[in-house]
């Protein structure tokens, strides 16, 4: 495990000068993951903020091979790249090891790219799929996705007199991914960089398909001050809204347990997208959301067993 000083001394594959918003969580996640890529890496991005804002022609923020593709096929494209690499290796036309990283936002992963992700996992390509989850279609203007938390105000689930934000709970993507019985799947948060980079290392070394679901706050969509990005991801973990866990060959493990579980409202009240939940008429929703988090955590604990 490298220290931050050692990580900073290594070549940085994600360059500054990209056009992601100030305070965006996605580049933080990308920088942390790429900092542990010890071999040449090929990256593909599903359409989304990260793709369009890092590759505005004639510039690119990627100091590695990068391949464009459409919204739904980041995983399919990278499957092809990895298959071509294996073929070239077999023919003796390529030497050395390479890493493959398919990236998508929650829209490109939970919704639009779900079939290509499933195909990639099932065929067993040695690709790491990274989902940076900001919980809505932020790139097109904050439309709800299946990763949007219940109660969140988005432009397609606007909070008002007739609605209290999104009605449905988040999709449990990690469980769907785990059901493919792949070698490694994990959920991480940039606030816990040591945990996140260790998971990224494991994913790159999994020897088969691996999946990382990483929390990436969006100051515009979540409606908070840009300086609070990392603090929010920390709150998400400390309230158990975003449990840190990994599933290695089917064995589920909680990698971080908050010493004192914080109330979910600590996470919610820091964001404008949940502001309406604190009105008197919506107070019951707060309770329901807290129960949801408690139930999920209990369920997780029963699946993972006692700490140790």
């Amino acid at each position, binding site marked *: 495990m490298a220290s931050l000083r050692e990580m900073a001394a290594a070549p940085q594959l994600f360059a500054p000068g990209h056009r992601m*918003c100030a305070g965006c969580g996605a580049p933080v996640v990308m920088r942390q993951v790429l900092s542990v890529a010890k071999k040449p890496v090929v990256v593909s991005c599903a359409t989304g903020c990260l793709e369009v804002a890092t590759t505005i022609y004639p510039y*690119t923020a990627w100091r590695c091979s990068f391949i464009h593709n459409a919204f739904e096929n980041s995983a399919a494209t990278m499957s092809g790249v990895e298959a071509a690499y294996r073929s070239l290796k077999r023919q003796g036309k390529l030497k050395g090891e390479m890493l493959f990283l398919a990236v998508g936002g929650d829209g490109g992963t939970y919704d639009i790219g779900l079939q290509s992700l499933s195909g990639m996992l099932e065929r067993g390509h040695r690709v790491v799929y990274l989902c940076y989850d900001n919980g809505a279609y932020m790139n097109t203007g904050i439309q709800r996705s299946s990763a949007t938390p219940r109660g969140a105000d988005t432009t397609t689930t606007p909070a008002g007199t007739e609605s209290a934000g999104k009605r449905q709970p988040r999709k449990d993507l990690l469980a769907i991914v785990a059901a493919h019985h792949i070698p490694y799947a994990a959920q991480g948060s940039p606030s816990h960089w040591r945990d996140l980079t260790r998971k990224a290392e494991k994913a790159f070394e999994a020897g088969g398909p691996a999946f990382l679901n990483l929390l990436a706050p969006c100051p515009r969509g979540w409606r908070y001050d840009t300086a609070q990005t990392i603090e929010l991801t920390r709150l998400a973990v400390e309230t158990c809204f975003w449990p840190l866990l990994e599933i290695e060959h089917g064995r589920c493990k909680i990698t971080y347990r908050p010493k004192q579980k914080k109330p979910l409202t600590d996470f919610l009240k820091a964001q404008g997208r949940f502001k309406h939940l604190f009105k008197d008429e919506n107070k019951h929703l707060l309770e329901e959301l807290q129960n949801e988090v408690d139930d999920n955590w209990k369920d997780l604990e029963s699946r993972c067993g006692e700490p140790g």
Partner: protein
Amino acid sequence: MVREGAGWRDIPRGGLILSPGNAARYVTGDWRTFRPTWHPERCIQCFLCWVYCPDAAIEVKDGKVAGVDYKHCKGCGICATECPDKAHALTMERDEGERGVEV
């Protein structure tokens, strides 16, 4: 890199960008409204600002944090928030730099 005014013959096939990471030549520092100031005498070299910066704008020289890259820093303030309280080596002030010139 493709320069302004280049004709179609000058552009690589498929619109490929052949200089990886050339975004570093693009200045995003003029987005800033607030400006982080680094106080070296208080810095404890924990590198937390470095790992949490979305813009890779914390400069590292000879294995040490050496300041802020104002060409790229967008002034989000994450570094100042995450700098440990006991150090308080990064503070945010209103950026008085002339837009687009002083970065």
